[in-house]
């Protein structure tokens, strides 16, 4: 389980700042480029689609106009033949003239015409141009163009393409024509008759027009159908009738001019429809949706190439920028890591203002840490030294020798009570001195220790000084550092009182002020010269000359190690007036918990 966890943690190892910046930039750029590419492509394809439709419409307009002109021309041919030739002449009287004029009209339009013929209402040929041999029995009256003309006499009728089945052709060929037929009235030998004027247009004329616009190879095409949807021209006409291809031409009859969408044979496509005037024929443009994208594959690739090239360029730029941004951070990190690894290089300071500031801060921090470390090491050394000194003071052999000597002297002088008192005080002194090896004891014990010490000293110095304890009783329950008063009292005796004649007075005052315990040892001794007062707490060698070895410096150090620089010893002295040595420690209630914390030295009172 643990292995699995650590593996997954490795997997999700945080990225470096360089990769993160690079990744973030690249992701944002890629996203923007993708959006840009898609939008561009969509916009372009939409414009292109509109353009294709517009171009198709334009082409259809032009082709429609050409077709209309062509058909108008054919109608004009029919009109000319009818109104200028047939109506003006009698077939019996002016047969030659009719032929001549018909010939003239045919010759003028023969590129688009196959034949002009006039049949009477029985289907008999009255005149034809070009002159050709009529088939034996073409069954004219049953041909579609004839019946339509006779059924609707007032109109001209355009047929769908068909094979002309009227005349024999020496070349043994068949011609594909579109018939324009109309009912006509004419006179033959003065007898008014009705019949049908037939103008057969060469299908190739329309076919050429349509082929010209059906030259695209993108799937787009055009076809022509009549008003019922019957195909007149389709580039795949034979394929459609053979079932190879198909066309939705039957539906076209229902559409008006415009642009339509349809789904035919699994393909979406646009239909553009234009109606040819008079005939009702419909020119249909078919644009399969696939043709919209036909020329755009290249555009897709082009956009993709542009995007990738941009991505390549941006990657280089991103790398450069991320290098620029991350390089100072990485250098700073490297220098910090080297520092952490134990080497001690200069912390990197460079790059932008913020990173420089960071470098400076880190450097300062490290410098401070170094300083503090040195201080800690020094304090620890001091502490160890002080404790050693304190231990030494506990077993000061000289003091013990003097005390024991005094006891011996008392026993010999049969001052048994005094000896008992002396031994008892000595016992108290040592008990408190030992205090189970503790550094922190209650103020009560500390004061007791001071009292015992002073009692012993008083006997030793034959009561040549007096001692008074002025202590607020409630401070007994506060913490004190062990053996801080005894060296001060020792100094007071040695330097203050010693040498005076029975009038030495030492007062120990204990107060609590502003959360601090102030213990003052006041003597009325000879005092300390002012210039020496300043050295007492700093120059330990000087003090040690006359003392028991446990100087005020030691006491001051021990207090400050435990409680900080705000606490310690202050000395006020005036020559021939006396000296007051005050010990200032924080008022910490004496509990087992507080004692342990203080002994570990973790708390400092600032």
């Amino acid at each position: 389980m643990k292995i699995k966890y650590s593996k997954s943690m490795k997997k999700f190892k945080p990225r470096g700042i360089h990769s993160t910046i690079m990744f973030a930039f690249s992701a944002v750029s890629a996203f923007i480029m993708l959006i840009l590419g898609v939008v561009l492509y969509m916009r372009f394809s939409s414009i292109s689609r509109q353009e294709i439709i517009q171009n198709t419409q334009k082409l259809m307009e032009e082709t429609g106009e050409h077709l209309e002109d062509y058909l108008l021309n054919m109608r004009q041919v029919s009109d000319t033949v009818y109104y200028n030739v047939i109506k003006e002449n009698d077939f019996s009287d002016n047969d030659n003239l009719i032929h001549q004029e018909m010939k003239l009209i045919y010759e003028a339009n023969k590129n688009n015409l196959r034949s002009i013929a006039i049949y009477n209402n029985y289907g008999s040929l009255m005149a034809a141009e070009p002159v050709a041999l009529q088939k034996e029995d073409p069954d004219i009256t049953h041909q579609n163009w004839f019946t339509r003309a006779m059924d609707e006499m007032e109109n001209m009728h355009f047929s769908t393409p068909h094979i002309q089945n009227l005349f024999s052709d020496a070349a043994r060929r068949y011609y594909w024509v579109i018939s324009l037929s109309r009912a006509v009235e004419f006179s033959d030998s003065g007898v008014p008759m009705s019949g049908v004027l037939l103008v057969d247009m060469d299908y190739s004329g329309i076919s050429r027009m349509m082929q010209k616009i059906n030259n695209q190879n993108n799937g787009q095409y055009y076809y022509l159908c009549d008003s019922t949807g019957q195909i007149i021209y389709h580039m795949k006409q034979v394929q459609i009738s053979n079932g190879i291809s198909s066309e939705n031409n039957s539906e076209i009859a229902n559409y008006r001019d415009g642009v339509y969408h349809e789904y035919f044979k699994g393909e979406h496509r646009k239909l553009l429809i234009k109606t040819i005037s008079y005939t009702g024929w419909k020119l249909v443009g078919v644009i399969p949706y696939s043709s919209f994208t036909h020329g755009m594959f290249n555009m897709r690739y082009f956009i993709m190439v542009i995007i990738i090239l941009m991505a390549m360029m941006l990657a280089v730029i991103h790398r450069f920028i991320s290098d620029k941004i991350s390089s100072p951070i990485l250098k700073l990190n490297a220098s910090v890591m080297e520092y952490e690894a134990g080497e001690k290089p200069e912390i990197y300071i460079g790059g932008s203002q913020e990173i420089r500031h960071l470098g400076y801060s880190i450097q300062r921090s490290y410098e401070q840490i170094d300083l503090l470390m040195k201080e800690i090491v020094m304090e620890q050394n001091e502490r160890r030294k002080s404790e050693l000194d304190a231990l030494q003071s506990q077993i000061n052999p000289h003091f013990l020798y003097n005390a024991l000597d005094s006891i011996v002297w008392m026993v010999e002088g049969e001052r048994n009570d005094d000896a008992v008192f002396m031994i008892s005080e000595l016992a108290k002194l040592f008990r408190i001195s030992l205090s189970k090896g503790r550094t922190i004891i209650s103020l009560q014990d500390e004061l007791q220790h001071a009292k015992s010490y002073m009692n012993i000293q008083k006997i030793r110095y034959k009561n040549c000084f007096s001692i008074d304890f002025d202590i607020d009783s409630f401070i007994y329950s506060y913490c004190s550092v062990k053996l801080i008063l005894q060296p001060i009292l020792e100094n007071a005796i040695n330097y203050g009182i010693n040498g005076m004649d029975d009038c030495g007075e030492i007062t120990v005052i204990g107060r609590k002020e502003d959360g601090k315990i102030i213990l003052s040892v006041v003597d009325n001794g000879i005092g300390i010269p002012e210039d020496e007062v300043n050295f007492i707490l700093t120059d330990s060698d000087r003090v040690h000359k006359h003392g028991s070895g446990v100087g005020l410096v030691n006491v001051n150090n021990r207090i400050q190690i435990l409680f900080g620089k705000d606490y310690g010893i202050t000395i006020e002295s005036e020559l021939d007036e006396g000296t007051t040595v005050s010990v200032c420690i924080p008022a910490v209630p004496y509990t087992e918990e507080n004692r342990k914390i203080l002994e570990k030295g973790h708390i400092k009172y600032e």
Partner: protein
Amino acid sequence: MNSKKKFICLEAAMATIVMILLFIMVKEQMGKQSYKISVILQDSDSSQWSALRYGLKMAAKDSGTEVFFASIGNELTVDEQINIIKYEIDNGADAIIVQPVSDINTEVELKKLEKKVPVMLVESTASKDRNASILPTTEADNYAMGRSLAEEILKDYNGNIQGKKLGIITDNSSSEAITNRIRGFKDILENTDAKICWTIFGSSGKSGKSFLKNKPSVDLVIALDNASLVNAAEDSALNKLHGALVYGIGHSTEAVYYLDTGDIECLVVPDEFNIGYKSLTEVVESLEYYFYKMKDMTLYYTILRNEELFSEKNQEIIFTMSQM
């Protein structure tokens, strides 16, 4: 892999993609490869191939390929045909559509060439036996056409052609197509009392007309190929057949013309447009798909009669024949 290597790999990968895309773009710019397909027909300029050529052209247009027609005379030998095919292949033909010369060696030679480019046969197989043919062939159902022609004759005589004398003319009896047409025709007339007085092979050759002139008169002349039919119809129009009625298989406007003029009684028209269209489509498939195996295709035919010659459906057949 360090960051620099990763970066170089990424740039290289993108550069590769750009190169690929540019390659595709250039390739597309150059356009889709247009296959060149050569068509080798005997008497290639004859109007009888109009519908077939139109079908080939339409298929080429639909499939975006180019089709070339080799200009060839009437009577080819195997070697000549093979040389022409080789010449076409040397000139860049990607596939060959050929009306094979009827010869015992044709199929073997064509099979050798098929290893270079796809070869599709039209109109007839190269082997005598259709089932034994090893090359793909697109043709009309020749046997069925022969049968239908005989059935039409029977219809005209209400099934009774007892004592009628028949003469058969064909251009090349050795081709599989003609053999099957004859077989189909004879299979129907087998149980009738009609008598086949003579059979002329190679009538479309230089001496075709002289054969008919010198042959004993018959009641019915059966022409089993287009050229023979047109020859017979011309003779009929010139009253050289002594009143014999002409029935036949043909696919040219001339044949239709003589049907229209009444010089031919019944015309069976193979679907030449689709033979052309489908043969080329099949060839294109095999060119586009490496593992595609071309299939034999048998197409239908139409029976034309004078009365219904200009029906809508028949007009379309004539339309394909009329294309130049």
